[in-house]
């Protein structure tokens, strides 16, 4: 306990004593975490945007002429229960006739010649905004088609697919970058602490010569790493917050367009918590690693 207290005091003193290198270390940690934060933020926002956009995915199925109403009702019920489906509307042959006559009023009188509407009945499905939507939708579509009551269909999946693809691309890039960033930041902090150890080589050597234990020397470095990680992540959080507060007006200034089209999302509190845990963790982990390597005896 006393060792821990001493080590924290020593670590704080050391941070203050070697201001520049620690400032730099802090800067690098913050920077790394900042990039991570920005990326998380971007992908969160893109998720929201694409979710918003994918709301309008809908499919229209035209039924065959001779289909039993019961069968259709059964299908409608089944589709309604599907979790992906926002809602389904059924358009009877009658409704279709009315729609047609509204569209082409000049032709209205022709329709009166039929005793039954010449138009097919149809159903319109609106899907919920969902992640891997297009593959999931395809499976529903397949199922419906298998029933052999569908004459033709009309679906605006093409566009939705494109947006999905972009979203996927960004997500993958984000994941990819995050893993690189994690390694890079561990590498950098590891080396900064190694540098710090090297920088204080003489001091460490002297301390050992007068009888300091290995733990007495190691501990402050480890605590220092954790503290640097903690401070670095707090700094990253503050900067991120500032930047994201600033960003919309910047975006507005450059393009004066985004506003209104994209409602820039509030930064999630969980992101800050994640940053702090990640920063402290990386700091602790890399300093442990570094001292293990460079303060062997």
């Amino acid at each position, binding site marked *: 306990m*006393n060792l821990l207290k001493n080590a924290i005091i020593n670590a704080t003193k050391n941070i203050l004593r070697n201001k520049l290198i620690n400032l730099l270390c802090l800067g690098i940690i913050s920077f790394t975490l900042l990039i991570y934060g920005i990326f998380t933020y971007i992908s969160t926002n893109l998720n929201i945007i694409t979710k918003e956009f994918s709301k309008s995915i809908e499919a229209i199925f035209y039924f065959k002429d001779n289909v039993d109403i019961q069968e259709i009702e059964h299908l409608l019920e089944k589709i309604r229960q599907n979790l992906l489906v926002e809602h389904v509307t059924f358009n009877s042959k009658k409704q279709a006739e009315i729609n047609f006559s509204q569209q082409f009023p000049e032709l209205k009188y022709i329709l009166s010649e039929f005793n039954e509407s010449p138009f097919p009945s149809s159903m319109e499905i609106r899907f919920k905004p969902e992640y891997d939507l297009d593959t999931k939708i395809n499976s529903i579509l397949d199922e419906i088609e298998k029933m052999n009551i569908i004459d033709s269909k009309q679906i605006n999946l093409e566009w939705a697919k494109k947006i999905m693809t972009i979203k996927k691309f960004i997500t993958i890039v984000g994941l990819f970058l995050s893993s690189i960033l994690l390694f890079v930041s561990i590498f950098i902090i590891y080396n900064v602490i190694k540098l710090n150890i090297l920088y204080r080589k*003489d001091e460490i050597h002297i301390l050992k010569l*007068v*009888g300091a234990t290995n733990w007495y020397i190691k501990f402050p470095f480890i605590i220092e790493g954790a503290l640097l990680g903690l401070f670095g992540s707090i700094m990253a959080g503050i900067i991120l917050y500032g930047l994201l507060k600033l960003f919309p007006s910047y975006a507005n200034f450059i393009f004066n367009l985004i506003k209104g089209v994209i409602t820039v999302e509030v930064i999630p509190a969980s992101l800050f918590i994640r940053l702090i845990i990640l920063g402290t963790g990386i700091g602790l982990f890399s300093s442990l690693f570094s001292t293990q390597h460079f303060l062997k005896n």
Partner: protein
Amino acid sequence: MIEFYHVSKQYVKNQFALNDINLSIEKGEFIFLTGSSGAGKTTLLKLIFKEQHPTKGQILIDSVNINLIPNKKLYKLRRSIGIVFQDFKLLSKRTIHENVAIPLIIRGERKSTLDKQVHSALSLVGLTHRRNYIPEHVSGGEQQRVAIARAIVGNPKIIIADEPTGNLDTELSIEILKIFERINSNGITMIIATHDKNLIKIFPKRVIRLEKGRLISDWSKEELL
């Protein structure tokens, strides 16, 4: 008790910094180690506190072969030895007071006893008025005296001093040696490397002379007279 058995040290192949040294130092002895520049004095001292390891031979302290002390236990050996390094080895970013306090701090000594001990060590070498300076801001001789204060502050069983008066004038040197003599009278072993023939003349002690890594003479003043 410190014993050297056929100890050799080569930093570079075929160049003996120490060559087949046999030596026995009793507890409570006061020893001058002398020899010209590059003779191996510092090397011999470094072997005692394991800053260097012998290429050959065994060194025993209180019948313990120090070769066999694992790195983890080394601090115990080091805490029992107070060292004045030839190049002082002060911590450049800490004050004189902190520098002298280091051996006590690392043992977790309480602040009040620590302050008292540091104060008395600094006043022995006449440096209480410099306690808040950093080493860079005091003179060469003052730095040397800080190193001496640090060596004696922790009540070690052995004191090793490598050229402790190289930057001090004769009067101060004699004063420091008198302090060492007083400490020695409490049963502390003293090993002092020095070039200063004057000091050796004034203080009639056992003198070990090295030349090119070999122990060429080992006698006490009394014997010679």
